[in-house]
């Protein structure tokens, strides 16, 4: 127990260097910015800023990129409360009661509770990472390649849970992603595979080009079609200091949301969006008077906002200890770590203690910064909402183009983005979500490597995946998860959660 505090102290020493502090702030501000602005999610932004972090050392880069992710959870609530448009998918439920409160002139109150709840949840989630990380990593270090293979299968199955809509369709998207991940050089023989003669593809499809096309640019095109992004903002914020009575009412919801979010973040297939939806459902169910919900109930803001922040923090646990991303954003983090030459997995904590503990400490500092950025400075963000989308989308396009180009300084990647934008747009029209595709794409090479290595050690006997106890348990869990989703009662419940 003592050693955790000692290591955390070391982490603070790493995080508090001027450079790291600065990039933590940059991440928090960028995160808030994109959280506030509808139509640009953290996935697109992180991939956008990824090339800009090449010059930094890995610790500063990861600190900044994660700041964007949890910062977006704060910023998203502002837009949801003030203009009834969720800036982030995690804030969809916050808009229900938050906007009602704003209409009643209690916008300041709602914003304050959202920020305070987010802060408490964020700090709690960070403590959980610090306590759970080292033992989990130790456990994972005993994994051999068959276990890793099964762990990845579990990770991929969890991507199906996250996806909205048909299970079958999500599985197809995963396989499409896996196949795209195969493009490039073969790890064992160095032979070029499926490059269609393009030299530029020999290192594989550029990660940033794929993400930017599927998520960034395709999103812009959908937004241009959709009239609802246009914002009319007439709400006045009012006092940001909540009364004691409101604080008392929100307290329980913050606690419940935090715990729920912490658990959801760690679980495969959990993630911040599911956490906030479930927290809202929970608050509504246990309330003495459920009819208050939808009419400005403070619990309806406090619960989901705490839950999404806690989950945003704890979703780093599977990534940092096992190298398994549980969401599209975490898949991006895998990409970011790999680009900086760090193999995501259980070795991070022992081989890169500065990175692990520095990141955790920076999350505490980042959460403090975010409360300051979001409460006293709320006026700036409100004014930002006045930027019309007809100007914003032009800027987004330019930044996307330069971002993609600057990864390898190659026009080819820009053309690749065009292709993936088209694919992303068509998939959206076909009600197929691109998030499972991204998970497959990121995990693809690792899945293949561990699959091949396992079969070499077992002399070609596929039973090895069932003979090793860890691998068997993980595969069993994956199958159980899949079956549970196909079962009618649970799948109906899942649809309800997504529709609410």
């Amino acid at each position, binding site marked *: 127990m003592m050693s955790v505090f000692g290591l955390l102290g070391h982490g603070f020493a790493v995080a508090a260097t001027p450079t790291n502090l600065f990039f933590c702030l940059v991440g928090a501000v960028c995160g808030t910015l994109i959280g506030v602005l509808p139509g640009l999610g953290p996935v697109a932004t992180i991939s956008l800023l990824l090339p800009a972090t090449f010059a930094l050392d890995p610790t500063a880069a990861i600190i900044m990129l994660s700041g964007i992710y949890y910062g977006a959870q704060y910023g998203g609530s502002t837009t949801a409360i003030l203009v009834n448009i969720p800036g982030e998918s995690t804030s969809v439920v916050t808009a229900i009661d938050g906007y009602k409160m704003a209409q009643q002139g209690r916008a300041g109150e709602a914003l304050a509770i959202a920020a305070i709840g987010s802060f408490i949840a964020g700090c709690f989630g960070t403590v959980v990472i610090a306590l759970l990380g080292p033992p989990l990593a130790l456990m994972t270090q005993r994994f051999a390649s068959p276990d890793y293979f099964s762990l990845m299968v579990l990770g991929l199955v969890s991507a199906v849970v996250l996806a909205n809509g048909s299970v079958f369709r999500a599985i197809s998207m995963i396989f499409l992603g896996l196949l795209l991940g195969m493009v490039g050089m*073969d790890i064992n023989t160095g032979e070029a595979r499926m490059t269609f003669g393009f030299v530029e593809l020999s290192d594989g499809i550029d990660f940033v080009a794929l993400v930017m096309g599927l998520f960034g640019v395709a999103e812009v095109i959908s937004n241009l079609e959709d009239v609802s992004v246009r914002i009319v903002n007439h709400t006045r914020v009012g006092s940001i200091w909540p009364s004691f009575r409101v604080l008392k009412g929100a307290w329980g919801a913050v606690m419940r949301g935090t715990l729920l979010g912490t658990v959801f973040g760690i679980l495969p297939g959990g993630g911040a969006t599911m956490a906030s939806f479930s927290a809202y459902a929970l608050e509504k169910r246990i309330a003495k008077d459920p009819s208050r919900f939808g009419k400005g109930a403070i619990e309806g803001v406090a619960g989901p906002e705490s839950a999404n922040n806690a989950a945003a923090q704890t979703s780093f646990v599977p990534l940092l200890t096992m190298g398994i991303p549980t969401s599209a954003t975490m898949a991006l983090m895998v990409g970011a770590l790999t680009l900086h030459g760090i193999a995501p997995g259980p070795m991070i904590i022992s081989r890169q203690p500065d990175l692990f503990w520095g990141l955790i400490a920076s999350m505490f500092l980042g959460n403090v910064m975010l409360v300051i950025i979001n409460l006293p400075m709320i006026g700036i963000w409100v004014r930002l909402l006045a930027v019309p989308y007809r100007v914003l989308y032009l800027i987004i396009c*330019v930044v996307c183009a330069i971002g993609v180009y600057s990864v390898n300084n190659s026009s080819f990647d820009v053309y690749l983005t*065009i292709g993936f934008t088209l694919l992303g747009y068509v998939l959206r*029209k076909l*009600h197929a979500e691109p998030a499972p595709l991204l998970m497959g794409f990121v995990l693809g090479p690792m899945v293949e490597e561990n699959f091949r290595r396992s*079969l070499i050690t077992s002399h*070609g006997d596929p039973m090895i995946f069932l003979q090793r106890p860890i691998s068997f348990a993980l595969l069993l869990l994956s199958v159980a998860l899949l079956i549970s989703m196909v079962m009618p009662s649970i799948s109906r419940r899942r649809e309800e959660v997504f529709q609410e």
Partner: protein
Amino acid sequence: MKPITRFGNIDFLSGLLLAAIAIIALCYIRTLTVGTVLEMGPGYFPLGLALVLLGLGLCLLVKGLFVDAPPVGEFHLRPLFFILLSFAAFGLLIERAGIMVAILAQVAVAHFASRETTVLQSVLTGIGCAVVSAVVFVLILQIPVSILP
């Protein structure tokens, strides 16, 4: 009307798309060494994936033919066409004419993607983006691109 929804529903068309991608991949994988379980070649794993994808695609395709599914969302060609074209303009110009011309051209093309843009706002946005990007990306981050032709 029935036959139109039959072929225009999302299941049938996504099945078609996935199967087509799988077949293209399979054509290419034919040129790779597949190998055996004991001695897996570069083509072994991709072949498996492509076959599964083909299977999934065909299942969706058949399901779309016999079970009703929602129709495909409406395609809005205007934003799609102009946004994609604006990226092509950027890609073609960045190395030939420098970052400022490439950005101005991109914004000029992207301007037509929405009916709500006004010429004045787009011109100002374009100039602003061009100047800021030239300073940030070329002067500070030093990506090897010229500022002007």
